[in-house]
């Protein structure tokens, strides 16, 4: 459901499993058919490319049967409720349902009505656990242990599930998280969740070991949050020039999709600092681990 309720041990367990899958999949002789015969349903009711495809590839890499349902092709457009759709998926034999939905809490809501494991692939502005796990995985690959490391998340925090999940996850792994961006998108109240809040770009970049950029989500906000995209870029865009403020070894992450020239300079996104495509690759291994562990957890309780 989210990283808020996961323990450090559980996060480490997923990441260990992900590392193993990453190694196995890079070796052509190694078969990973752990989910053979399992039926995984991707119920994606909000546009998504990366996450949906990553979950599909992850499930296929484990030899599961994958069915992807996207917003337009589902019965929800015919007036069926989410609960009914999910109950139908279960009746049709889904062994796990991966849910992406624009409403916060929708996965948790489904988990109360459905017996099959529900995997949260992003629920409104609440959590995006698989993204945060792959971010942590990528950060650890680059920085080693995250204990005491400073991670700055920059951009539209208020509407971001990625920011929330990362804040929980990174804090649990011992990192110090700074949330940065305009005051209308980064309210002070985030401090109560354990983050440092900064509206000063330079200050928030200066001591960061990694900076995670978030896309400005035009679709979720009205015009009152900041004057214009141009103004955002002028005040908070990560330009080549501003990247000089970063420590020499600091890396740049972005969950995608990138708006080149808005939150990040195009060249910077392609530079060696950026690990954006590594994130995407790691996303597969991490999601393999999630699918494997979630379906297995159920199996174990059934055996009991």
């Amino acid at each position, binding site marked *: 459901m989210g990283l808020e309720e996961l323990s450090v041990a559980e996060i480490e367990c997923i990441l260990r499993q992900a590392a193993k899958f990453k190694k196995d999949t890079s070796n052509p002789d190694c078969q990973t058919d752990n989910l053979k015969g399992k039926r995984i349903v991707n119920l994606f009711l909000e546009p998504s490319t990366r996450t949906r495809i990553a979950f599909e590839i992850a499930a296929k890499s484990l030899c599961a049967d994958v069915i992807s349902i996207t917003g337009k092709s589902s019965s929800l457009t015919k007036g069926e409720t989410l609960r009914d759709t999910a109950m139908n998926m279960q009746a049709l034999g889904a062994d796990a349902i991966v849910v992406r939905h624009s*409403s916060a*809490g929708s996965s948790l*809501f489904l988990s109360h009505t459905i017996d099959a494991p529900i995997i949260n692939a992003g629920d*409104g502005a609440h959590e995006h656990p698989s993204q945060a796990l792959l971010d942590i995985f990528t950060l650890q690959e680059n920085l080693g242990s995250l204990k005491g490391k400073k991670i700055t998340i920059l951009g539209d925090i208020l509407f971001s599930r990625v920011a929330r999940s990362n804040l929980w996850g990174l804090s649990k792994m011992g990192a110090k998280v700074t949330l940065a961006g305009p005051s209308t998108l980064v309210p002070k109240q*985030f401090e109560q969740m354990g983050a440092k809040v900064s509206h000063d770009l330079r200050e928030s970049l200066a001591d960061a070991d990694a900076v995670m950029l978030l896309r400005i989500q035009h679709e979720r906000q009205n015009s009152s949050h900041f004057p214009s995209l141009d103004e955002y870029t002028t005040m908070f865009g990560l330009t080549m020039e501003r990247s000089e403020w970063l420590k020499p070894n600091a890396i740049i992450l972005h969950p995608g999709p990138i708006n080149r020239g808005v939150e990040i300079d195009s060249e910077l996104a392609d530079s060696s600092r950026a690990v954006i495509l590594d994130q995407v690759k790691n996303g597969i291994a991490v999601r393999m681990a999630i699918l494997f562990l979630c379906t297995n957890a159920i199996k174990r309780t059934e055996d009991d």
Partner: protein
Amino acid sequence: MTDYFFSGARIIDPSQNLDEKRDLWVTNGKITFDRQDGEAVSVNASEMVIMPGMVDLRSHLHAPESLTSLSAAAAAGGYTAILTMPDARPPADNPGAVRLMQEKASKVGTIKFLQCGCLTKGSKGEELAPLGTLKEAGVVAVSDCPGSPQNTEIFVKGLEYASMFDLPVIEFPRDFSISPSGVAHDGPTSLKMGIGGYPRMAEELFVQRAITVSRNIHANIHLSSISSSGSVELIRDAKARGIPITADTTPHHLALTDEKILGYDANSKTMPPLREKSDRQAILEGVLDGTIDCICTAHEPCHEHEKQVEFDLAPSGIIGYETALSVVYSELSRHHKDPCRLIARIMSENPSRILKNPDRSIAEGAVADFVLFDPGKEWKYNARQGLSAARNSPFHNSLIKGSVEMTFSMGKKVYSVR
């Protein structure tokens, strides 16, 4: 007609400043304190309280509730008069709709249904509803609850115009421009959950608007369902300056905070939303010191399937009749040695006075209209076994203190506990 004898009950009636232990008989539907020798059902009421029937200032008549089920649920909560909000179908913005509702209520209602008419046509906030005609048709108050006229000129004119007919105006304070979605209170809880959209400010700005308008045009305004600490302060100050406003809150704002929505349970989604600890504390203080005059139930039934959807898509609304008195008693008894007199005032006397609806007293010869309440009895509320046709209650499975044992309305026994 069955007669009743209540021995040794504590009788509380704030309208006569009455609070004493007495024997009370109901004979031919009327109250008497004179010993009656005829056959009567005898109730040992020595540990119980008899108060005038509860009066509710905010009830929404929505499906699945019918007038019959609403009567039954209200009676089970000790309510004998309830004000239905104008957002029924059809909306109470024309005399036909008002009369239709009265006709239906007179057939099936076991309690008094009082009607609140629209302040503006269709409660759209654009033009005034025909308030004089509505009053002639029988409405006892006007309001756009659960909305509020966003245009202040309409609001002011409505108040001026309603005052000509001595019609109470109930304002549900909400500035929609800063609470367009209104899913949840904007605070640490909702920030974490990724929802929100109904800040305190949305209420407080319009509470201040009502106070300013009331001061300038000397009109009474009743503020409905106060949920925020800032509103309580504003109202307290305004009252100290003699501005003629009154206010109510709900049992759930007195008893719960937004932590209740942490699991995205839409049965705790209400309007205004549940807020923080500090708000709940301020509301409690407001009730204890008289800043908040009444408790309304904000009874808003929803179908179960309507609530079984994503939290932000679920309609807001909480049912309240069967738990209101007990929840308020449970909360107030934690801070008040003997809250029964206060309860009789804020749940019966004051709302009745705001509606200018007198003659509800526990006096010799009066028509029996009272509740028999057992403050010592603890019980577990099960929304599935209630008399309301809806189940959307955040108090489902809660242990609450104080039980309604019997309710009399219009001279008849309309409820007795199973």
